[in-house]
């Protein structure tokens, strides 16, 4: 019996079947659902959300050192955070098998860049395994653990959005219990002093060499023999697209283990066809190495290194086939994502937006949408934690240049624990003229509601110590911490002004839980417009609420979307909007 599974569900299942015992991750689209699936197997598998990806990789690596198979997972940019432990774990090697899932996001459906994380495998000198559908996501996990243990290295398991989020049919297997390796102290292997690292490097090179040799006969690669005219070397989701696009009779060398490349196998395949293509999404990772080995092939001169592929794009780029499209006389206008009706972040962004001389450095999360018009209330968003520290750099510069600008650094609660702590410390330590603001909605919102160290629950549903953000800020040295309900615009303004006027280091916590948190009871009502009173001034539109529009020069509130937060009512100059009690 086959079941329909997303790639992420299949990876979780694969980890379970491979006998994995310890798993640690930080959520990030498109990787999140792997760990949302794992609690299903909690009788056999321990899983947790770590405060950030670096911690997650260190926890999972620790489990490997302690002798069991372990897993970590993250979105592509998460691996930037976790690169430090990865590069040294590659030198120390593993005890229990250790796999890190990196989920890349071509086309940036929910990301800030489209980096191709296969480059990490080359730089860190580790194996990279690439599945192309859900069945392979499950099956390749087992092989990835064998490779990790046999070649004494962490394995990167690289998916893309379409591998992680597409669903296809999967034949399930049984869990294999793996006996833990009995723990004993091994300083030579596990303590990365320069002397040990010096001795480890030749081992790493030798293991890679052996892995390349193994890859020539590795079961993760598949040869589909055709008529010898055209040959295609491909991997990951690009294989699925190439299968739809190339003619009958095309030979395929579909690779599942793409670092180090099986050069002997590739050379033999190249010799068996007249024209060789290398088809891959994003960078020419395989192609560059194949060309460097002196094997002629066609790749990135035709296929773009930007944005995700699909069969139609590939056909167009390779063979010039234009799609048949009908031009419509009407064009759709943009429908960008927006803060939800009733989002607690709205009150903060509306209020800070009135401080025209303030610089607001933002961060990654739902509140990145504070940059969207009409709020347009952010100056920068770079990376997790950058909200505080990029702000510190701007503030220092303004001070040096003699500009009187106040900088507000904005992060969410989960981001605060992820990497806001160090930025908050930087501000105090180096006396940066920044007011840190934590938008605490009690959940990791954008990725679909995962718990974090501030929520009081763990991934496995157990009650945990909820780390108090205000106590952390006080301990760092903030003498005044304003805790405010951002939905109360007057109180929000008083907190902002209070922080500006404070002679001592001040911080703000804008605290109100996200309305979508299921385990909480929310007070949902509706706001209504009194059309007699409404003067059509459009002030209410400035809060950027999707439930609000102007119809016949009067404000209108969509009752199916409104939740009665009253932010629009608070900005109405004539009191035309009121809350309808139930």
């Amino acid at each position, binding site marked *: 019996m086959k079941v329909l599974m997303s790639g992420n569900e299949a990876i979780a299942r694969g980890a379970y079947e491979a006998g994995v015992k310890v798993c640690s991750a930080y959520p990030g689209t498109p990787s999140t659902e792997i760990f949302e699936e794992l609690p299903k197997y909690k009788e056999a598998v321990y899983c947790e959300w770590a405060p950030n990806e670096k911690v997650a990789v260190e926890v999972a690596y620790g489990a490997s050192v302690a002798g069991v198979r372990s897993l970590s997972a993250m979105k592509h940019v998460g691996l930037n955070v976790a690169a430090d432990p990865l590069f040294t774990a590659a030198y120390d090697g593993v005890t229990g098998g250790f796999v890190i899932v990196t989920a890349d996001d071509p086309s940036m*459906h*929910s990301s800030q860049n489209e980096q191709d994380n296969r480059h990490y495998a080359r730089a860190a000198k580790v194996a990279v395994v690439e599945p192309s559908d859900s069945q392979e996501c499950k099956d390749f996990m087992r092989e990835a653990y064998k490779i990790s243990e046999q070649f004494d290295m962490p394995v990167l398991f690289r998916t893309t959005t379409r591998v992680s989020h*597409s*669903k296809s049919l999967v034949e399930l297997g049984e869990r294999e219990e793996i006996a833990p390796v009995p723990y004993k102290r091994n300083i030579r292997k596990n303590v990365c002093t320069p002397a040990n690292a010096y001795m480890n490097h030749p081992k790493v090179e030798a293991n890679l060499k052996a892995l390349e040799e193994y890859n020539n006969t590795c079961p993760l690669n598949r040869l589909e023999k055709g008529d010898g005219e055209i040959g295609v070397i491909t991997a990951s989701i690009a294989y699925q697209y190439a299968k739809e696009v190339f003619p009958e009779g095309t030979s395929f060398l579909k690779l599942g283990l793409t670092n180090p490349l099986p050069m002997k196998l590739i050379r033999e395949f190249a010799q068996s066809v007249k024209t060789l293509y290398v088809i891959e999404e994003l960078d020419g990772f395989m192609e560059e190495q194949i060309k460097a080995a002196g094997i002629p092939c066609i790749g990135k001169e035709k296929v773009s290194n930007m944005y995700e592929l699909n*069969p139609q794009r590939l056909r167009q780029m390779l063979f010039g086939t234009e799609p048949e499209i009908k031009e419509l006389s009407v064009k759709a206008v943009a*429908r960008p994502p927006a803060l939800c009706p009733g989002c607690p972040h709205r009150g903060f962004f509306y209020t800070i937006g009135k401080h025209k001389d303030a610089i607001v450095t933002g961060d990654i999360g739902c509140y990145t949408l504070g940059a969207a018009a009409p709020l347009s209330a952010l100056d920068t968003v770079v990376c997790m934690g950058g909200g505080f520290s990029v702000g510190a750099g701007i503030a220092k510069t303004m001070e040096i240049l003699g500009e009187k600008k106040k900088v507000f650094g904005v992060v969410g609660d989960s981001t605060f624990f992820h990497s806001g702590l160090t930025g908050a410390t930087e501000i105090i330590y180096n006396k940066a003229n920044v007011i840190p603001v934590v938008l605490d909605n009690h959940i990791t919102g954008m990725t679909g509601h995962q718990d974090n160290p501030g929520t009081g629950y763990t991934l496995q549903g157990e009650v945990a110590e909820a780390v108090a953000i205000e106590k952390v800020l006080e301990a760092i040295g903030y003498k005044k911490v304003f805790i405010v309900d951002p939905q109360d615009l007057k109180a929000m303004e008083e907190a902002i002004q209070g922080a500006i006027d404070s002679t001592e280091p001040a911080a703000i916590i804008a605290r109100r839980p996200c309305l979508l948190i299921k385990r909480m009871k929310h007070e949902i009502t509706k706001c209504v417009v009194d059309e007699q009173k409404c003067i059509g001034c459009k002030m209410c539109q400035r809060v*950027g609420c999707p439930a609000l529009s102007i119809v016949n020069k009067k404000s209108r509130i969509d009752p199916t979307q409104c939740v009665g937060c009253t932010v629009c009512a608070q900005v109405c100059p004539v009191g035309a909007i009121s809350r309808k009690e139930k």
Partner: protein
Amino acid sequence: MKKSIILAGVGGQGAILTAKILINGVMQKGYDVKMSEVHGMSQRGGSVSTQVHFGDKVYAPVIGKGEADILVAFEKMEAVRYAEFLKPEGIAVINDYAMESAATAAGLCEYPEGCLEAMQENFNCLVLNAYDIAMQLGNPKCMNVVLFGAMTHPLGLDDIDWESVIRETVPEKFVELNLRAYRAGREAVL
């Protein structure tokens, strides 16, 4: 046999359940199936699409421009946005229902006039007001299954017992509502 279907709408309209019913049906018939959806930022009130590709053997989980046999638009401006994915001879099932976007609600641009007419000029269209039908059935949330009912006409897999597929797919307490929604959607475009 291969069929490609795009379900386009606004985050939160329930396209994924519609896709699930479709997939469960075609799986029973033994077809190979792939489905693709998006998560994360684009879901927050943004334009979203769910794509289903099924047949004797399918590879790609996504559909390119000019490749879809059926476009099901949960909102009429989204029909226009995704029209370029439809084959010239493809069929559009359109919900005659408009939702403001964050950009139109903020007064940054106007919601376009004539979406429905533009679609009808270019494609074979089945149009229904699934929102009104769902409201008459007592729950606007079943709009997605009303649209599914309408979609079963161009789908043409009449040997699939969709009512039993719906029974098996939706939560028990919503079975009756969704069966009525399915029937109402089928009748609406007869």
